[in-house]
């Protein structure tokens, strides 16, 4: 976050407060990423212990959200931040809401993984989630990277990858619907797997939001509810 010159305020104390917030967001991002990875691993590797661990660790994500929110409120109240400082605080408040929701989705993965871990019967279906999960993991990772590096161009590129995730989710939904029709006795299990796919797809959406906050933070431009491809083109980007 060197681009923001967070360490150049006349008030050393303010520098420290912003630095703390920034570090905590990065730590929260790391925690959420690990939760998603573990949730997915538990699901496709049939690891019941890991699954339980994921669903039990969600409180840590929630606690971090509350703590960072509190620090941001203190900065708003006491420092009346402006310009890039203000945009940083606003972007952080919004980003951690999405991170917390990603945490909730990861918890869902863990919960379903724990329920499904009793038998190997659905393992072949669960493994179908691996590709979608991989796309989602790397998109989340890169959106957090863009946030850490304050790289708006990267954020715009990463956000566009959500289309691939939506496509993969649609394919997977069709596949799971077909299985459901073929074998209605397994409707409960297959619905759980569908919900897992849905949770992964939602993580992609939250990652897009994080990318949008990066663009707002760096460029001061609100690209929510716009065509992200066009937003990139406005910046003279040549990305696909």
């Amino acid at each position, binding site marked *: 976050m060197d681009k923001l010159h967070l360490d150049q*305020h*006349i008030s050393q104390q303010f520098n420290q407060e912003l630095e703390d917030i920034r570090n905590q967001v990065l730590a929260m991002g790391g925690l959420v990423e690990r939760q998603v990875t573990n949730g997915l691993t538990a699901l496709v590797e049939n690891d019941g212990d890991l699954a339980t661990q994921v669903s039990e660790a969600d409180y840590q994500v929630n606690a971090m959200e509350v703590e960072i929110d509190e620090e941001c409120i203190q900065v708003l109240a006491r420092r009346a931040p*402006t*310009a890039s400082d203000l*945009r940083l605080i606003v972007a952080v408040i919004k980003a951690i809401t999405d991170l917390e929701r990603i945490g909730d989705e990861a918890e869902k993965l863990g919960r379903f993984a724990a329920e499904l871990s009793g038998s190997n019967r659905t393992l072949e279906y669960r493994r179908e989630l691996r590709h979608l999960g991989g796309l989602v993991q790397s998109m989340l990772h890169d959106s957090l990277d863009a946030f850490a590096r304050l790289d708006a161009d990267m954020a715009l590129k990463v956000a566009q990858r959500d289309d691939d995730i939506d496509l993969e989710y649609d394919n997977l939904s069709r596949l799971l619907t077909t299985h459901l029709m073929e074998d209605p006795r397994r409707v409960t299990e297959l619905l759980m797997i569908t919900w897992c796919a849905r949770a992964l797809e939602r993580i992609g959406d939250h990652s897009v939001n994080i990318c949008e906050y990066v663009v707002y933070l760096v*460029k001061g431009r609100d690209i929510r509810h716009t065509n992200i491809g066009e937003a990139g083109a406005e910046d003279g980007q040549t990305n696909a």
Partner: protein
Amino acid sequence: MSSAAEKAFEELKETVGRVTVDNPKMQAKNVDVFYGDKQAIFDVTCDIGKNEVIAMIGPSGCGKSTFLRCMNRMNDTIPSCRVGGDILLEGDSLYSSSVDPVMLRARVGMVFQKPNPFAKSIYDNVAYGPRIHGLANNRAELDDIVESSLQRAGLFDEVKDRLNAPGTSLSGGQQQRLCIARTIAVNPEVILMDEPCSALDPIATARIEELIDELRENYAIAIVTHSMQQAARVSQRTAYFHLGKLVEVGETKTIFTNPTHELTENYITGRFG
């Protein structure tokens, strides 16, 4: 100043942002100001729109007050001061030889940092300007002007029973509102305010700010302030001065969320600059 900011300042050829407005009341064009051989203002061009509050901010010594004082020729009182370029009020130059500075200051009023009521009654403080400019034909008309000016300055209800008490008997915030009443009593078109709240407590400040917002309906207002939050609260446009140059002008809502120039950003966020 960081070297990048320093470089950006040196390379600053013209002000960043839109210096003109569609509906100007005053227009400063390429204004230079010298105190003796020392140049205090460099080539500043900036409009003040009708019915707008423009805030002028910047570190001490940046020239914002000097610039404000050019707007009603207050700098004429400083012998070594020379003003280049031109400033127009409704299209007419303030500095043309046919302009009488006393008449000009009735059209472009000024409120100062420290409330400076005359050592006269509250009534006479407000009546002073209308009397010397012959704005009232009789006592009843003068009474009307005094009352309506005090009303518009939000002070009448507090002083209506003691109009003959000395102006200096009022509290600081009331004195400042008295000075504003005195300024608007001569029906100016523009009001210049040089840190009008810096000697006031937060409640008196809030009253003045509320008043500024109401006055905007009838006047163009330029306010110099050291309080960034005040600039953010009261103005529609903000101008940032640095070492005698006008670095950036823009809509206040943009300046405080996404300024363009690095120096503006550094100043409003409290960074080294």
